[in-house]
């Protein structure tokens, strides 16, 4: 299971990549996609939608269940992954790459500091696994 070092993580299993200039790319983690199973539909908000840190902003539907996706930061949606409508399986195949969900313009970049780093998230996942 992968935990890229350059990302920040939420306890709801989303990742956030700081792309500079207040932009942050958001997706669900390798652990999340594995737990969900085959993703069949991704529901993400329209451009310009305001999102709030740790509030649900979309849904990922797999053959097993439908799960809320939580926003790691507060801000506005400025990009949506255009590939997911046709190929939701990208979330499984490349959760940190082509399977990204949205880009948000953060209103408060310091919010990223409150998220877990890779090491902390890996420990969080391994704790969840042993429970």
């Amino acid at each position, binding site marked *: 299971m992968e935990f890229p070092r350059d990302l920040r993580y939420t306890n709801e299993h989303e990742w956030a990549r700081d792309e500079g200039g207040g932009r942050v790319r958001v997706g669900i983690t390798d652990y999340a996609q594995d737990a969900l*199973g085959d*993703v*069949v539909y991704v529901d993400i908000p329209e451009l310009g939608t305001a999102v709030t840190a740790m509030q649900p902003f979309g849904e990922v539907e797999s*053959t097993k*269940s439908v799960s809320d996706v939580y926003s790691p930061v507060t801000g506005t949606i400025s990009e949506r992954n255009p590939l997911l409508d046709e190929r939701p399986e990208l979330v499984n195949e490349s959760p940190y790459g082509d399977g990204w969900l949205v880009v948000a313009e953060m209103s408060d970049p310091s919010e990223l500091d409150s998220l877990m780093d890779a090491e902390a998230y890996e420990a969080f996942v391994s704790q969840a696994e042993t429970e």
Partner: protein
Amino acid sequence: MTGAPVRTQGPDIQSGTIMDRSRAGRRAFSFPAPDVPEAAVPEEFARRGRPALPEVAERDIVAHYTRLSQMNYGVDTGVYALGSCSMKYNPKIAETVASLPGFQRAHPQQPDHTVQGALELLWRLERALCEVTGMARATLQPPAGACGELTGLLLMRAHHTKQGNARTRVAIPDSSHGTNPASVRLAGYEALHIPSDARGLVDVSALEKLVDEDVAGLMLTNPNTLGLFEEEIEKITSVVHNAGGLVYYDGANLNAILGRCRPGDMGFDIVHINTHKTFATPHGGGGPGAGPVGVTEELVPYLPVPSVERDEATGEFRLSADREDSIGRMHGFHGNFGVLVRAYAYVFLHGSDGLQEVGERAVLNANYLAELVKEAFPLAYPGRPMHEFVATARPLRDRTGIRAMDIAKRVIDLGFHPPTVYFPLVVEESMMVEPTETETRETLDGLAAAMLQAAQEAKTDPDILHQAPVTTPVRRLDEARAARHLKLRWS
């Protein structure tokens, strides 16, 4: 032994749909020449083209659908331990009763005095359901459990509206069935999730914190979706009542407590009943069902109309729409009458002692089976389950990589319908098993042996599980592809 794999002869499903058997101009009927003048269909109602229906001989239609039915696995074929669904065997005597001409040929618009027997059946069934649930009156209109939920929530809304404030939210435990939040939204409320505690029961202290004057009520099953009895049920209902809310009993699991205890006595205000789960009417499968809803005296003024009333002086039954604050109709006429006749037959062929035994045997069978398989599939929660149990394939997955889905597919090859997997969502690798009350010990032993054999093979021969099923007309389906690329039409 039940559940031997069905081998079919002749054309199989792969040979095509009924459309592939269609030949232009072929008919399953022939009308005699008309002996009255033909009337022209008004232009605005006339079809522009031919309907896209199969043109098939009767003989071919019967062959096609009989073949499909032989490929199927149903409650008449063997044990169907699909947890949460209560796939009960439907006793044939209920079919016989429902086919009596007086019931089958009655028309819903006949004058009351010509259908006294049918009205009396509805009147008696309503009273029997009220006795079983501890409610004052009931409506038989809702045509399915989910509609029963909506009816119950609309009654809740009507009550609060009458009090001057409809309120905005309805509380639901996190283990609940997906229909609950869907019904809440349909009734114009927001769902408020209540967490479960480590025992898998409602977290009462969390409930106390979350329930306020804005909460219209709580929806709950008992035993709950994990098959566990909510031991603090009286505390739970009083927490909601103290905030002015109502408590709704989702009848999904009423079959576990039949004759033992009653939702009304636990403090519930509204109860819906799934007649297919509690009284073994056929599962609708999209067809007719019945989801009667019972209420306390306080909520009777809001029940749907018409209701069946009896004139105490003459003993005559009549339909009455005399209920000023009624939420109105939930269905045409009296609901799905034929299903209600079957439920009535089931109630009265068992009697009160028999119904209690139905519940007890369902609980006994589930617990017997849980004990047999617990080594490989431990219970997800420590408490003693009731009519169904939630086990987990998590330890097996951690050791072997084999998942609940693989076990389910292998169980098919071993001749049984598998249990529910991946529900409820709060349990990882969940397997939800509900054998129901009608199965013999030999059948339960057979199902357990199949599940244990699959668990053993996970260690010795995992490839068999990855390949499964191999005995079915179609092999393992690509569920993800089916959902990603929806194809809902034959063309």
